[in-house]
C-alpha cells in the first residue's frame, strides 16, 4: 500500500463506500423506469385502489395485494418481534455467557435456512394443522404470518443480542448495585440503552417479512382477494410478481414491474421513518 499512500487509500475507501448507495440508485432507476410509465398510463388510482386483477383482460388493480402484504407483515411482527426480543434479553441477561455462546450461533445458523424450506414446512405441517383445527383452506394469511414470524426470529434475536451486549457492563453494575433485580435492570436500563439496536433488528425483520417471496407463495394460497379473516387465502405483492413474472410479456410485465415500484417505494418510506427515529434517539442521548 506504500505505492498508493495514505491519501490514495482514503480515496479508494471513499469510492467503495459509495458502492451500496450507487447500487440502490441503480436499482431505483431501473425499476422505476420499467414500472412508472405503466402506472401513469393506467392511472395511479386505478392501479393502487382497484381490486380487479385480470391480466388477460387488461385489468391491473393491485389493492388486494397491498392489503394482503400489510396484513401478512403485521402478523409476522406480532409473532416474531416479541418472541425474538424476549429471547434476546433472556440469552444476554439471564443465561450464563458460556451457554449463550452456544445458543446464539445455533440461532444464527437457522437464519441461513432457505426460505423455500420454511415454505415447505408451512405446506406440509402448518397448513394441515390450520385446516384441521380452524377450517378454511389452510394455505392462508394466518399460515403465512406464522411462517414469516418464525423466519424473522433469527434476524431479530441475533441483532438484538449484539446491541444488548454493546451496552456497557458498568450500566448494569450501577443498576444492580442500587439493589435492582435483573428484570428491573433490563426494563429500566438495558432496554433504553440498546433501544436503537432493537428497533433496527425489528425493522430488518420487517423488511424480511415484507420482501419474503418464496415462502409466502408456498403458504399464503395466492388467491387475489381482500382477506376478511386470517384463514383466507391471500396473494402478497411479492407473490404477485414472482408468480406471473415467468410468463408475463408486454403490458403485463410492465404491470409486474409497477407492482415492484409500489413495494420499492413502500420499503423506502419505511426505512426513512426508521432512520429518522434512530437519529432522533441518537441526538437525545
Amino acid at each position, binding site marked *: 500500500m506504500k505505492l498508493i499512500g495514505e491519501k490514495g487509500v482514503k480515496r479508494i475507501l471513499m469510492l467503495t463506500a459509495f458502492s451500496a448507495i450507487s447500487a440502490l440508485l441503480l436499482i431505483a432507476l431501473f425499476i422505476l423506469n420499467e414500472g412508472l410509465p405503466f402506472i401513469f398510463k393506467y392511472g395511479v388510482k386505478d392501479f393502487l385502489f382497484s381490486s380487479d386483477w385480470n391480466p388477460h383482460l387488461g385489468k391491473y388493480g393491485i389493492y388486494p395485494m397491498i392489503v394482503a402484504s400489510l396484513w401478512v407483515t403485521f402478523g409476522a411482527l406480532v409473532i416474531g418481534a416479541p418472541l425474538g426480543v424476549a429471547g434476546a434479553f433472556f440469552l444476554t441477561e439471564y443465561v450464563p455467557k458460556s451457554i449463550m455462546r452456544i445458543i446464539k450461533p445455533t440461532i444464527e445458523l437457522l437464519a441461513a435456512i432457505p426460505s423455500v424450506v420454511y415454505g*415447505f414446512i408451512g405446506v406440509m405441517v402448518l397448513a394441515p394443522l390450520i385446516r384441521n383445527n380452524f377450517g378454511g383452506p389452510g394455505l392462508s394469511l394466518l399460515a403465512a404470518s406464522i411462517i414469516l414470524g418464525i423466519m424473522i426470529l433469527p434476524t431479530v434475536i441475533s441483532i438484538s443480542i449484539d446491541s444488548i451486549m454493546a451496552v456497557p457492563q458498568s450500566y448494569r453494575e450501577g443498576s444492580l448495585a442500587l439493589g435492582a433485580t435483573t428484570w428491573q435492570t433490563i426494563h429500566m436500563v438495558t432496554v433504553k440503552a440498546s433501544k436503537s439496536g432493537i428497533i433496527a433488528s425489528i425493522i430488518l425483520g420487517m423488511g424480511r417479512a415484507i420482501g419474503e417471496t418464496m415462502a409466502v407463495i408456498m403458504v399464503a394460497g395466492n388467491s387475489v382477494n381482500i382477506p376478511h379473516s386470517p384463514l383466507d387465502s391471500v396473494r402478497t405483492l411479492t407473490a404477485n410478481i414472482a408468480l406471473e413474472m415467468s410468463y408475463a410479456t408486454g403490458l403485463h410485465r410492465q404491470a409486474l414491474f409497477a407492482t415492484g415500484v409500489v413495494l420499492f417505494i413502500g420499503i423506502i418510506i419505511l426505512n426513512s421513518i426508521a432512520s429518522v427515529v434512530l437519529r432522533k434517539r441518537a441526538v437525545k442521548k
Partner: protein
Amino acid sequence: MRIHPRYTQRGAIAVLGGATLLTLLILAFIIFFILEKGLPGISLSFLTTNPTDMGRAGGIFPTLIGTIILPLLAIIIATPLGIFTSVYLSEYTKENKATRIIRFGTDCLAGIPSIIFGLFGYIFFVVTLGFGWSILSGGLTLAVMILPTIIRTSEEAIRAVPKSYREVSFSLGATSWQTVKKVILPNALPGIVTGIMLSIGRAIGETAAVIFTAGSSLRIPSSVFDSTRTMAVHFYILAREGISAENAYATAATLIIAVLIVNLSAYWLMHRFIAKRS
C-alpha cells in the same frame, strides 16, 4: 398496586425463558423434520448423478455446482466492497452528511425485498447488459443483495475494537491504514467472518433473486455466461410443482446440511482464531 420485584423477576424469567425455549423448539423441529424425511433419500449417487425426468428421478449434481459457484462469485465481489466501506465509515471519516447518506443507502438496500433484486437483476444484468440468464447475472445480483449485510456486520465488528488499541497504534507512529491493517481488521475478523457467513447462508438459500437472473437450466455450466440452477431453485420447483416429494425432501436435507457445514466450519475457524490470539 406495586408488585414486589421478586415476583416481577420470576415472571420475567418465565416469560423470557419461555420465549427462548419456544424459539429453539420451533427451530429444532424444522431441522429434524427435514433431515428425518430427507436423509434416507440422500446417497452418493443422488449427489453425483444428473436429474432425469425433470427431477422426478436421478440426482442433483448440476444444482450442487450452481449452489457453490453463485454464492462464491457473490462473496468475491461483495466482501472487499463491504469491508472497505465499513473501514471508511468507522475509521476514515467523522459523522457527516456523506456518511449519513451512505448509511441510509445501506439500510435501504438491506430492506429491499429479494424479489426486487430479482427484477433489477433481470432488467439490468440479464437484459440491459446482455449477460442473459447466467451465473454472472445471478452472482452479481446476489453480490448487491448481500453487500449491506457485510457492511453492517463489519462495521459493528470494527466499532467493537477498543479505542485504546487504536491509540496505542497511533502513538507508535502508525498511519491510519497501518492501524486498520495490523490492529483493527485482525481484531474485528471474527465479527467480519460472521457477517460473511450469514451472507453465504442467505446466498445459498436465495430463490427469488436467483430464479430470474441465473435461470433454472439443469445443464452443467461451462462458463459464467451459462445458466445454472441452484439447489434452492431446484427444491422450489420440485416442491411447488409437486414433481417428487421424495426428491424434494432429499434436496431440502442436502441444502440444510450444506448450510450447516458452511456455518459450522466458519464458527470453528472463528474459535480457533480467538483461541490463538488470547
